[in-house]
């Protein structure tokens, strides 16, 4: 007995069960507990099953959202998982980290109106993905092996997705990863309390079962060049997904004081190297009592919440615009507030102050006001003269963005870059160099997990076409 639209409209948006803020800000276990069966079904029932569903084009990989939600309502989780996995290889990850409020949920019909609240597509995605991981033995159907070798540079979401898609099409895909562990930002950047490593590991294991090879400790540009992969190592094509991992510093005085970390270093020490468990783990990290993080994106939120968990009495976020302009996911900002993070909005650092012993002891900031909108459409922050003030700290973490890392491109001079150093690629990911595609942050600048995955998928389709044509093979479905 299907529900009437009116009955569906009457169901309020279900809340994600979370751990208590005072408890969770003491450890690195996941904050969100996940829906249970009854909440999930109730939430899925809220979907109006729109004919011309707006949510689907809102998703960069085009998941058939109404069909997927309908299967949850019907109690067919296996069916739901199949629909999900058909379009999205890493739903346990995107369900947790997609900025849904800017994508599928933003355009959901139920988000309209003053009190409108979208269907919680992301939370349901996470629910189904977790269920599938525990309960399904997902055997992906693989095309007949082609014997064609394709190399993928980087094991972030773009690289993982591309490798999985190529394996499905029967190709012999090898990922080369510079670090000792696969996952890219998912592993070294995003903390456990938001995205547990075991979820990434299980996704990576699934790819391995499909025949994808992952070789760590290989830096393309140093261990091999792209030309060597193509000319000597027998790869027919290369997909470059090395991310945009070069930290930007502000070039203000005192940045090289001890206790000033790039967000990348701070998060890498904590997540990849497990420094939050020092001395059980060998890698140390400075646990500040007063930690200041500069920025308003996901990276800044992750850093400041990590600082709190490492025992900071005061963990302060300094951001030059207002809360409304913060680029971080809504949920992260909300969680940070609940966890006792201090927000210093409309202010910007101008220099770090150091003590005699070389340690940072404070950040001098200046108050800002918002002027006219700039290129990004957000109102431009303007410093208010004479409003300088000092925040005491013993650790300071600029988290103001990253750029393209030139390591690979310097070793590949015929790969065309744009003026910011990102690789130039057409809408299919094809670069200026024959046989080389690229996707993810290295073509977009710091973007999102799901956009990186979309690029990986798109390029895999193009690479498949290209290598099959070259080898005189029939195209597959």
């Amino acid at each position, binding site marked *: 007995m299907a529900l009437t639209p009116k009955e569906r409209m009457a169901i309020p948006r279900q809340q994600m069960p979370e751990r208590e803020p005072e408890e969770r800000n003491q450890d690195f276990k996941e904050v969100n507990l996940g829906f249970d069966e009854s909440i999930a079904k109730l939430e899925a029932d809220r979907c109006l099953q729109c004919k011309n569903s707006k949510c689907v084009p809102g998703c960069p990989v085009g998941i058939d959202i109404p069909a997927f939600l309908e299967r949850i309502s019907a109690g067919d989780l296996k069916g739901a998982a199949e629909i999900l996995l058909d379009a999205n290889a890493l739903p346990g990850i995107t369900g947790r980290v997609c900025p849904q409020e800017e994508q599928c949920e933003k355009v959901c019909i139920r988000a309209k109106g003053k009190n409108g609240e979208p269907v919680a597509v992301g939370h349901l995605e996470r629910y189904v993905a977790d269920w599938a991981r525990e309960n399904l033995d997902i055997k992906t159907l693989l095309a007949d092996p082609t014997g064609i070798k394709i190399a993928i540079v980087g094991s972030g979401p773009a690289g993982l997705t591309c490798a999985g898609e190529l394996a499905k099409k029967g190709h012999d895909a090898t990922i080369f990863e*510079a*670090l*000792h562990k696969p996952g890219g930002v998912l592993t*070294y950047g995003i903390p456990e309390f938001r995205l547990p490593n075991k979820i990434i590991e299980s996704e990576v294991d699934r790819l391995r079962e499909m025949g994808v090879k992952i070789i*760590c*400790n*290989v*830096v393309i540009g*140093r*261990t*091999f060049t792209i030309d060597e992969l193509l000319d000597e190592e027998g790869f027919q094509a290369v997909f470059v997904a090395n991310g945009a*991992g*070069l*930290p930007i*510093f502000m*070039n203000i005085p005192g*940045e*090289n004081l*001890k*206790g000033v*970390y*790039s967000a*990348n*270093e701070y998060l*890498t*020490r904590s997540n990849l*190297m*497990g420094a939050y468990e*020092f*001395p*059980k*783990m*060998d*890698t*140390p990290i*400075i646990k500040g009592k007063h930690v200041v993080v500069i920025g308003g994106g996901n990276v800044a939120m992750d850093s400041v919440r990590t600082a709190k968990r490492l025992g900071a009495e005061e963990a302060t976020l300094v951001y030059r615009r207002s809360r409304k302009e913060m680029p971080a996911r809504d949920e992260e900002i909300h969680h940070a507030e609940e966890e006792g993070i201090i927000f210093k909005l409309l202010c910007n650092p101008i220099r770090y102050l150091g003590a005699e012993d*070389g340690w940072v002891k404070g950040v001098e900031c200046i108050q800002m006001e918002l002027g006219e909108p700039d290129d990004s459409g957000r109102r431009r922050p303007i410093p208010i003269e004479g409003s300088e003030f000092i925040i005491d700290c013993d650790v300071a973490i600029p988290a103001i963005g990253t750029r393209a*890392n*030139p*390591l690979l491109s310097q070793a590949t001079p015929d790969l065309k870059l744009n003026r910011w150093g990102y690789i130039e690629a057409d809408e299919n990911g094809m670069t200026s160099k024959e046989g080389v595609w690229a996707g993810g942050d290295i073509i977009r600048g710091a973007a999102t997990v799901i956009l990186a995955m979309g690029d990986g998928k798109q390029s895999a389709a193009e690479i498949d076409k290209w290598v099959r044509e070259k080898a005189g093979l029939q195209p597959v479905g």
Partner: protein
Amino acid sequence: MFRILDTKQLASDVKWFRLEAPLVAKHREPGQFVIIRLDETGERIPLTMADADKERGTIELIVKAIGKTTMTLFTKEAGDTIADVMGPLGMPTEIEEVEHAVLVGGGVGTAVIYPLAKALRDKGCFVSSITGGRTKELVVLEEELKQVSDAVYATTDDGSYGFKGTVADKLVELINDKERPIGAIYCAGPVPMMKAIAELTRPFGIKTIVSLNPIMVDGTGMCGGCRVTIDGKTKFACVDGPEFDGHLVDYDELADRLTAYREQEQQSLKLMEHKRKLEQVRK
């Protein structure tokens, strides 16, 4: 997993290793390093490759045991494995074709100059190597250096062996020897030593290249932990270096940044000692 094939103890706290790392060996050039991680709980630490054999797919490391990771590595023998070896990293040394090149190594810095001596000699330079220590025990690699240098000078601060004085004192003698003018100096060792050498050569305008040793994590330019100030500008030593023009380095900042984890390093060491003692008692 990367297998250790061969080891040799060179001094009480210095050990040489040959290990299997074919991909790294294939592209390694003098001046480059690897980052290793011993096991799942281990730290990532940078070590210079003293040599590599492309055909056999092996690389060589010379390690001075100073903290938890290097001391643990010190206990490894042929047949043992290392979880991760990544590289080659860093810019290869720019080998200057000069008539006379002088290499100055202090402590384990000698491991860094050893491959340079070899490369410079292959280019036809006359190579003088100075290796120094406080006492005889601390002079390392003298024998090895002899095989790749035209002249080798060992120095000790206390005169217990070779020339009495610092490596800088010896270098002054070589600079003053007008018979054989020096075209370039390569120097690796403790920060104060590199600083002293750079200050010494500055007035003579002799090109002086130093190999810096900041704390590193990834080694690919991703973390910025290895940042050093060169000519007032921030550089990442793992990708822009580790070798820089010695006359442009902010040594005081480097020395200071190297102390950032002193407390934690001590804590790690104590814990290791404690575990070792417990094991002895159990036995």
